[in-house]
């Protein structure tokens, strides 16, 4: 006995593995075997190599890693004996694939084997090559394979043919070399060689047009004859399958004829007879016959027009469609999809059957049928088809619902004859499958709704009804909440009643109820609840009687742990409480969103290029904007009457917006508002007309470290489509700083003072505070001035929460660094310094001017001081 024996025989190992009861046991057995095999490999054991490789292959099939055995394959292939080579090649094909570099080492062995005297070994080599060769190997060995195409033994010829297929697929340039030998194969009598030869020709035609031309000219007639022979041949037991002689050959011939006939009228003509014969004479009670018929129909559909044949083909498909065999129906549906392109009338006739297939119990059939129905829809049948589909939606499987919903929505959108029908269908889909409806779909729905002004009342009432019963469907809630917010008064006042509607009484508080239920429901996600808050704000303006109640609800959310809701609540609350004068203007009815731009944008699916710095306080975007940028842009493009300037995208837009009179915002709310309302600060500052430089900077800068968290989140929100969600951007520094204008990027330190020096300036002085500015400039950069501001407390009380803010006119750009601290000790016992950067684009023509505002807390009371600094040195 060989002392290096690896012990177990193959079948013993297999038995051991199968006897394992748990995965751990199996792993243990496999590990032991692998260890033994590895030991044998390193000892370079000859005798049991093939047994070890067999074991390795079994282990590989179970899924364990076996890369250490790859070299063994090579050694086995290199050994002279037939059994070793056989198992070596098998191992090669199983354990390796063309991406492994080890494969290259085999090339030489294969080359030698291709010229071996033992034809079975040649066969092994061809087989391996045909299954996994890489492009380099293909190139190397192509001449050998080509030679073998004319070998005396037919078995080798057929293997060589299939091997050539892989070669030309990997290296298409070599195709020309194979054309002639392949054509020769078509004249063979041996079925195996004929089969493979035909397949080779088919693939050559697909790869090279030269081959296609050649075969078309020279071989079409020959092929037709072969098909005729085999179709008419008498019973041949060797090739018979359920009564048909060699159906595989039939099918391959039909495939090749298809490729040759496509696009060429002459070739197509020559095939007509035989195609007709096959189509009519083939028995279709067995699968083999059906396979042939299927291929035949496919060929007829692809080659050039012949009315009679086409009719024949469609009839066969119709027969298939009503077959009880699922397989047949499946392939029929598949083929009908191609047939639609050619003769949609014929397919329409089968519409009812296809519709039935959509409801079939078989998932594959359902899928095919749905796609087919989608192709069948046109203006005349859209209503009935949609009705059927929506009815089915209710009872369909969850996995199927998503697909079905998407298709229904798409059909409805493309083919809806009138808006009311569109809205109706969507109103049916949303309660049933709202959770599967994609965002673009319900955005489009809203666009359509806004454009159908006569249907607003109808829409909002219908939505209200649906919401009562199906409040769990996310999308339905979103659309409904938005509509109720917008058209609340129509809901309550029963405005715009259509004839078919039943009257319904909805009081204002009912409407508010509905929204409050929605917002309390925790199963709905953040965006929906945010939209509810928005809707509540709108209603507070439209239903003055409920305003107080709405305000209470909103106040409740000011303590929400969710940042988005909290921010919204705080702002809306301040709008309700303190800004009644602008509130109604703020929440005015949305203008009709422009369908053309919207669908155009959606098709391009490029997020709106408008900078995120929009005059948001003027037009609080509704929740829709949270999800895509597109509606956001629309909102601005068609912004309400507050902005009369023509809209233009980009940073200029804001300038336009701000340049124009900001009627609602410009009313200076007075100096007594608490520091909380960041909106107000923003309004103020913007009213001076500062250009905002980059959009991304607005996103991250605005989360100022106010501990009262009232950073003007509106701009944050606008930042979100393009920049990182503002919720995540950490507060900048510990001090509360409005780094509004990030003109230069962070200026960390004031550069050295080797420019011209300027006297320091007493910028502002009041009874309690003194502000001094020290200037420096960098030589060579005259437009930019660095200011160091110093604040001194003149009062006997210390100030806390000290915030300095500044605003400059359009031609200046301002940058604020964090302040040194935000507590100002009393009576000048210390000071706060803060660095500013000012860039004057009109340097020399206009001098600097600045409005400043300083806020602080003294004895727990908030104080705000404002002033204007006009006395900058002229040449600054």
């Amino acid at each position, binding site marked *: 006995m060989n002392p290096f024996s690896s012990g177990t025989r*193959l*079948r013993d190992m*297999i038995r051991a593995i*199968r006897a394992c009861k748990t995965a751990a046991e199996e792993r243990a057995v496999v590990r032991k075997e692998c260890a033994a095999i590895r030991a044998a490999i390193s000892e370079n054991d000859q*005798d049991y190599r093939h047994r070890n490789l*067999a074991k390795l*292959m079994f282990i590989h*099939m179970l899924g364990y890693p076996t890369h250490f055995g790859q070299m063994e394959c090579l050694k086995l292939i290199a050994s002279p*004996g*037939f*059994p070793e080579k*056989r198992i070596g090649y*098998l191992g090669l094909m*199983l354990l390796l694939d063309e991406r492994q570099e080890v494969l290259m080492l085999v090339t030489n062995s294969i080359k030698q084997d291709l010229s071996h005297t*033992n034809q*079975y070994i040649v066969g092994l080599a*061809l*087989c391996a090559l*045909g*299954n996994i060769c890489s492009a380099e190997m293909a190139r190397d060995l192509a001449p050998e394979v080509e030679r073998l195409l004319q070998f005396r033994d037919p*078995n080798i010829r*057929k*293997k060589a043919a*299939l*091997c050539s*297929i*892989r070669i030309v697929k990997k290296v298409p340039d070599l195709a020309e070399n194979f054309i002639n030998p392949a054509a020769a194969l078509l004249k063979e009598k041996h*079925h*195996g060689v004929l*089969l*493979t030869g035909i*397949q080779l020709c088919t693939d050559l035609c697909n790869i090279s047009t030269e081959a296609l031309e050649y075969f078309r000219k020279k071989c079409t007639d020959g092929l037709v004859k072969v098909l005729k022979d085999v179709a008419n041949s008498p019973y041949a037991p*060797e*090739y018979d*399958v359920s009564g048909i002689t*060699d*159906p*595989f*050959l039939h*099918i*391959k011939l039909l*495939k090749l004829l298809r490729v040759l006939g496509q696009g060429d009228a002459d070739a197509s003509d020559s095939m007509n007879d035989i195609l007709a014969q096959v189509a009519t004479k083939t028995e279709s009670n067995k*699968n*083999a016959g*059906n*396979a042939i018929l*299927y*291929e035949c129909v*496919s060929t007829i559909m692809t080659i050039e027009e012949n009315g009679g044949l086409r009719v024949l083909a469609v009839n066969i498909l119709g027969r298939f469609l009503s077959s009880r*065999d*699922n*397989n047949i*129906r*499946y*392939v029929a549906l598949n083929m009908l999809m191609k047939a639609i392109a050619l003769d949609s009338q014929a397919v329409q006739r089968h519409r009812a059957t296809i519709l039935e297939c959509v409801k079939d119990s*078989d*998932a*594959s*059939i359902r*899928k095919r049928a749905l796609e087919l129905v989608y192709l069948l829809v046109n203006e005349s049948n859209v209503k009935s088809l949609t009705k059927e589909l929506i009815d089915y939606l209710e009872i369909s499987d969850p996995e199927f619902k998503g697909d079905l919903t998407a298709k229904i929505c798409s059909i409805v959108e493309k083919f809806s004859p009138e808006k009311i029908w569109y809205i109706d269908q969507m109103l049916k889909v949303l309660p049933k499958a709202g959770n599967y409806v994609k965002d673009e779909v319900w955005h489009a729905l809203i666009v359509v709704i806004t454009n159908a002004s006569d249907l607003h009342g109808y829409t909002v009432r219908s939505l209200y009804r649906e919401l009562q019963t199906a409040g769990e469907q996310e999308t339905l809630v979103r659309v409904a909440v938005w509509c109720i917010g917008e058209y609340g008064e129509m809901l309550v006042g029963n405005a715009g009643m259509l004839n078919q509607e039943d009257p319904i009484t909805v009081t204002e508080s009912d409407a508010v109820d509905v929204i409050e239920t929605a917002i309390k429901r925790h199963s709905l996600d953040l965006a929906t609840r945010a939209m509810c808050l928005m809707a509540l704000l709108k209603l507070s303006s439209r239903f003055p009687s409920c305003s107080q109640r709405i305000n209470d609800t909103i106040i409740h959310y000011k303590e929400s742990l969710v940042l988005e809701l909290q921010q919204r609540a705080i702002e809306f609350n301040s709008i309700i409480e303190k800004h009644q004068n602008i509130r109604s203007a703020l929440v005015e009815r949305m203008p009709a969103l422009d369908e053309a731009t919207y669908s155009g944008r959606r098709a391009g699916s490029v997020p709106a290029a408008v900078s995120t710095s929009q005059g948001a306080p003027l037009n609080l975007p509704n929740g829709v904007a949270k999800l895509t940028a597109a509606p956001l842009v629309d909102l601005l493009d068609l912004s309400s009457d507050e902005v009369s300037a023509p809209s233009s995208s980009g940073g200029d837009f804001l300038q336009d917006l701000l340049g124009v009179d900001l009627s609602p915002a410009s009313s200076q709310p007075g100096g007594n508002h608490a520091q909380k309302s960041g909106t107000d600060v923003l309004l103020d500052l913007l009213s001076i007309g500062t250009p905002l430089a980059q959009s991304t900077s607005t996103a991250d800068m605005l989360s100022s470290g106010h501990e009262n968290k009232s950073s003007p989140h509106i701009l944050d929100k606008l930042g979100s489509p393009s920049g990182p969600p503002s919720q995540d951007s950490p507060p900048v520094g510990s001090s509360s700083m409005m780094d509004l204008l990030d003109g230069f990027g962070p200026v960390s330190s004031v550069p050295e003072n080797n420019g011209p020096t300027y006297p320091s300036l007493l910028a502002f002085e009041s009874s309690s505070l003194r502000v001094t500015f020290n200037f420096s400039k960098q030589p060579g950069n005259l437009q930019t001035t660095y200011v160091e501001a110093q604040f001194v407390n003149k009062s006997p009380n210390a100030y806390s929460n000290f915030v300095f803010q500044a605003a400059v006119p359009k031609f200046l750009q301002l940058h604020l660094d964090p302040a040194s601290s935000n507590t100002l000790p009393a009576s000048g016992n210390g000071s706060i310094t803060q660095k500013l950067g000012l860039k004057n684009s009109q340097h020399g023509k206009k001098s600097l001017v600045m409005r400043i505002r300083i806020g602080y807390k003294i004895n727990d009371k908030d104080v705000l001081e404002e002033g204007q600094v006009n006395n900058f040195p002229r040449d600054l």
Partner: protein
Amino acid sequence: MILSRGPKLCNFVEWRGYKVVYKRYASLYFCMCIDQDDNELEVLEIIHHFVEILDRYFGSVCELDLIFNFHKAYYILDEILIAGELQESSKKTVARLIAAQDSLVEQAKEQASTISNMIAQATK
């Protein structure tokens, strides 16, 4: 995915842009993955062709035969398909080829055993 399908459903499943055709024989499923534009019914025939040849070779093949002789099953498969394309539509030819190769293996084994006997004797 396939195991969860019921008995009366069609034998084709769509998967990752390909189609998987399967046929069930007692407790075994034979699956083939094909492109979108291949003829599924033909593939069913190919599967049946393969199974019939296996049957003829092993003589009423059962699952255990395939497990313990997987390498032989692979050899047969290599005679039927290369690179996924059908190679030989005649069962008789395939059987003949496999038989010839098997006999080569037998011959080689016999030779090896006599040689190793001789060596073992000589080195004892």
